[in-house]
C-alpha cells in the first residue's frame, strides 16, 4: 500500500513539476522515498534479466542512454534514468515513473547512470549485475574532495555489489585499477589518433609504486597506452578495442578489427562511449548485429554538441571539467569554418562552487585564425574573462545576457557559432536558443 501511495505521489509531483515548467527529475523520487523508503528495493526485484549501472566522470549520460536505446532496439523493456538524475532520488524517480497506477512494474533490464559519490547509497537499495566505469577526471572538487576519495568510494561500492561484472576503460589507469582481482573486461582505443599534446594529467604516477608513468601513446588527459617502467604495472589486456579510426566527417572505426562502426557523432570521446556500450552488450550476451542502427537512432542528450539552426548553425556543448572542456575545445578547433564562440561559466552547487578548474583547461588552444569573436558570460564571467586574458586570448564581449550574446553572433560573418557551457548554464542556454528560434520563425518579432 505504501508502495502504491509512493508511486502516485511521485507521478503527481512529476505532473505538477511539468505544469510549473520545472525539469527536476529528482523531486518525485524524494517524495516517493519519504512515503516508502524501500521503494527501489521492492521494484528492483521485478527487473528480470539484469541491472546495469554506469559510473564515471564524463560520458555517463551518453553511455547509459545509448545502452538503453540499444536494448530497446533489441526488443527488451527497460527502466532508465534518461534525464540524468543520478543520485538515490533520481533512481527512485525512474522506478516510480515506470510503474503503472496500481504500482505494478516489470522490465527486462534496469539501465542506470549513477553518480560516483552516490553509488554506495544506491547499492544499499539494489545490487547491479553489470557496472560500466567510463573514466575518472577532476570534477567538482569541492563536492568530492580529491580524486583519491572518489576512488575509495567506488571501491567500497563495488565491494557492496558483490558478484558484479565490471566493464572498464582500460586506457584510464585510475579506472582500470578497479578490475584488480575482480571479474572485469576492458575497452580501449588501440592506436594513436590525436596529436600528443601536453595537457593536465591526473594520476601520472603509477598507482602501484608511485614512480612516474610512461605512455606509448596517449589520447587525452591520462587516457592512453600507459605503463610503469619501474614496477611493470601497465594498461590491461583490452577485450574490446577500437582501431582504424577516422574522425574527418562521420566518425568511423572498427571494434576488434572486425565490427564496423559508422556514426554521425562529433567528438573523439564518443568513441569511448560507443565502445563502452558495445562491450556491455557483448558481456551481457546480447546480439550486437543491429548496433549501427541503434546508434543512428540515438538522440543525443541536450547540450552534447547539440545543433540548433538559427539561420546559421549554433552548436551547444556542455563541459563540466578540464577533461571535458579540453575535449570540447579540440572538437571546436577541428571545425575549420569561421566561428564565433561563447563560453558561459556558472558556479552554482551543481557546477561546483569552485571555479579553480578553469585554470586547468587549455583555453589558449581555443584561438586560431578561424576564431571570429569570443564572448564570455555566466555568473563567473569575470573569472573566465581573466582566464582568457592570461592565456593571451582576446575576449571581444563580456556580457551577462546570453540572448544578446547569441543574437550578436547571428549577425556576424562567421559561418558557425559554438556555445560552451557548464552544467547550470545548459538548460537556460538551450531555452534561450529555442526562444530565438521561435522569434525567427515568427518573422523576427520579439515575443516578450
Amino acid at each position, binding site marked *: 500500500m505504501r508502495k502504491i501511495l509512493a508511486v502516485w505521489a511521485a507521478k503527481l509531483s512529476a505532473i505538477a513539476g511539468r505544469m510549473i515548467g520545472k525539469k527536476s527529475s529528482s523531486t518525485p523520487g524524494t517524495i516517493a522515498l519519504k512515503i516508502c523508503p524501500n521503494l527501489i528495493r521492492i521494484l528492483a526485484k521485478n527487473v528480470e534479466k539484469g541491472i546495469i549501472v554506469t559510473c564515471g566522470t564524463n560520458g555517463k549520460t551518453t553511455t547509459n542512454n545509448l545502452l538503453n536505446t540499444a536494448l530497446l532496439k533489441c526488443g527488451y523493456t527497460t527502466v532508465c534514468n534518461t534525464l540524468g538524475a543520478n543520485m538515490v532520488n533520481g533512481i527512485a524517480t525512474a522506478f516510480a515513473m515506470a510503474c503503472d497506477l496500481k504500482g505494478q512494474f516489470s522490465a527486462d533490464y534496469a539501465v542506470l547512470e549513477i553518480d560516483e559519490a552516490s553509488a554506495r547509497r544506491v547499492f544499499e537499495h539494489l545490487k547491479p549485475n553489470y557496472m560500466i566505469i567510463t573514466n575518472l577526471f*577532476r570534477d567538482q*572538487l*569541492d563536492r568530492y*574532495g*580529491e*580524486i*583519491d576519495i572518489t576512488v575509495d568510494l567506488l571501491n567500497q561500492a563495488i565491494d557492496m555489489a558483490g558478484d558484479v561484472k565490471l566493464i572498464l576503460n582500460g586506457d584510464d589507469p585510475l579506472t582500470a585499477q578497479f578490475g584488480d582481482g575482480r571479474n572485469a573486461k576492458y575497452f580501449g582505443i588501440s592506436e594513436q589518433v590525436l596529436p600528443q599534446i601536453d595537457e*593536465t594529467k591526473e594520476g*601520472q*604516477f603509477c598507482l602501484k609504486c*608511485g614512480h*612516474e608513468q610512461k605512455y606509448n601513446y596517449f589520447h587525452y588527459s591520462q587516457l592512453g597506452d600507459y605503463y610503469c617502467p619501474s614496477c611493470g604495472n601497465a594498461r590491461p589486456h583490452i577485450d574490446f578495442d577500437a582501431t582504424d579510426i577516422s574522425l574527418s566527417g562521420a566518425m568511423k572505426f572498427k571494434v576488434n578489427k572486425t565490427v564496423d562502426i559508422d556514426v554521425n557523432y562529433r567528438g573523439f570521446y564518443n568513441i569511448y562511449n560507443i565502445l563502452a556500450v558495445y562491450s556491455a552488450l557483448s558481456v551481457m550476451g546480447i546480439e550486437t548485429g543491429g548496433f549501427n542502427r541503434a546508434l543512428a537512432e540515438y538522440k543525443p542528450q541536450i547540450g552534447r554538441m547539440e545543433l540548433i539552426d538559427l539561420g546559421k548553425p549554433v552548436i551547444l556543448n556542455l563541459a563540466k571539467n578540464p577533461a571535458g572542456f579540453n575535449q570540447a575545445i579540440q572538437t571546436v578547433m577541428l571545425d575549420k569554418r569561421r566561428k564565433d564562440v561563447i563560453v558561459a561559466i556558472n558556479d552554482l552547487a551543481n557546477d561546483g*562552487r*569552485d*571555479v*579553480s*578548474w*578553469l*585554470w*586547468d583547461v587549455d583555453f589558449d588552444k581555443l584561438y586560431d585564425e578561424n576564431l571570429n569573436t569570443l564572448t564570455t558570460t555566466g555568473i563567473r564571467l*569575470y*573569472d573566465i*574573462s*581573466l*582566464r582568457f*586574458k*592570461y*592565456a593571451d586570448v582576446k575576449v571581444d564581449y563580456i556580457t551577462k545576457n546570453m540572448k544578446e550574446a547569441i543574437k550578436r553572433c547571428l549577425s556576424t560573418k562567421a559561418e558557425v557559432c559554438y556555445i560552451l557551457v557548464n552544467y547550470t548554464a545548459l538548460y537556460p542556454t538551450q531555452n534561450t536558443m529555442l526562444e530565438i528560434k521561435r522569434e525567427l520563425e515568427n518573422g523576427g518579432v520579439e515575443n516578450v
Partner: protein
Amino acid sequence: MSDNRELNIIHLYPDLLNLYGDRGNIACMQKRLNWRGIGANVSTCTNSDHSINLEAADIIFVGGGSDREQELVCGLLLKKKQELVDYVEGGGVLVAVCGGYQLLGKYYQTASSKIEGLGILDIYTDAGDDRLIGNVVLQSELFDQKIVGFENHAGRTFIGSHTPLGKVVYGRGNTGDSGYEGVVYKNVVATYLHGPLLPKNPMLCDYILGCAMKKKYEDFTGFEPLNDELENVANKYIEDRFAGEK
C-alpha cells in the same frame, strides 16, 4: 630601468602538486612581469629532475596536491630542507598554497600518520573532521584591496605568533574559527587560498613580485601600474557577493 631585468621563478614539483589549477599563479606572475618589460624565467623542479638551483631563485612557488602526492613531495623536499631554510631566512621569496602551506610547518598530523614538515615556519597542522570549503574574503594589512579566493582543506593550521596573511571577512581560514588566514613571514606568503589566487588579486601578485624585485635590484622603487580593470572587477565581484553590505 627595465632594461634586461628578469626574475627567476621556480615552480616546485608541478607534476606532483598541481591539484587546483596552481599554474594560474605562475602564469599570472609571468605575465605581470612581462607586461612591464621585465623577463620571467620559469623553471620547474620535477620528480624526474630534482636539480634546482635555489641560489638563482628569485621566487619559489609550491602548490597543493592530494594527501598521497603531498607526502611524496614532503619526502623529496626534506632533502633540501636546509637550503630552503637558508633561502627564506636570507629574504628569498616563497609562495606556498594549500598543501604547500602545510609543508612549511613543523608537521601535518593526519588521522593515520604524522608527516614531517620543513619547519620553515613555526606552525603545525592537525587534520580536522570535516573539510573547510568555500569562497573566502580577507582583509590584509599589506594593502587595501581585499584578498579573495577559494579554500578546500581538512587541515587546521595553528600559526602561533606568526603574522597572518589577513583577517577573515568571509570564509573559514586557518583553523575554521581563529578568524585569520595564512601566514606572512619575511618574504614568505603562505595561504590556503588555492588555484588561481593571484589573477584575481593583482595587489597581492604585485606585492610578491615587488618583494623579489627589491631583493634583487637595489634601485627598484616600485612597479608602473597596469590596466587592472578586469582583475579589479573580478576581485570586487567576489567581495561584494560574499562580504558585501548585508
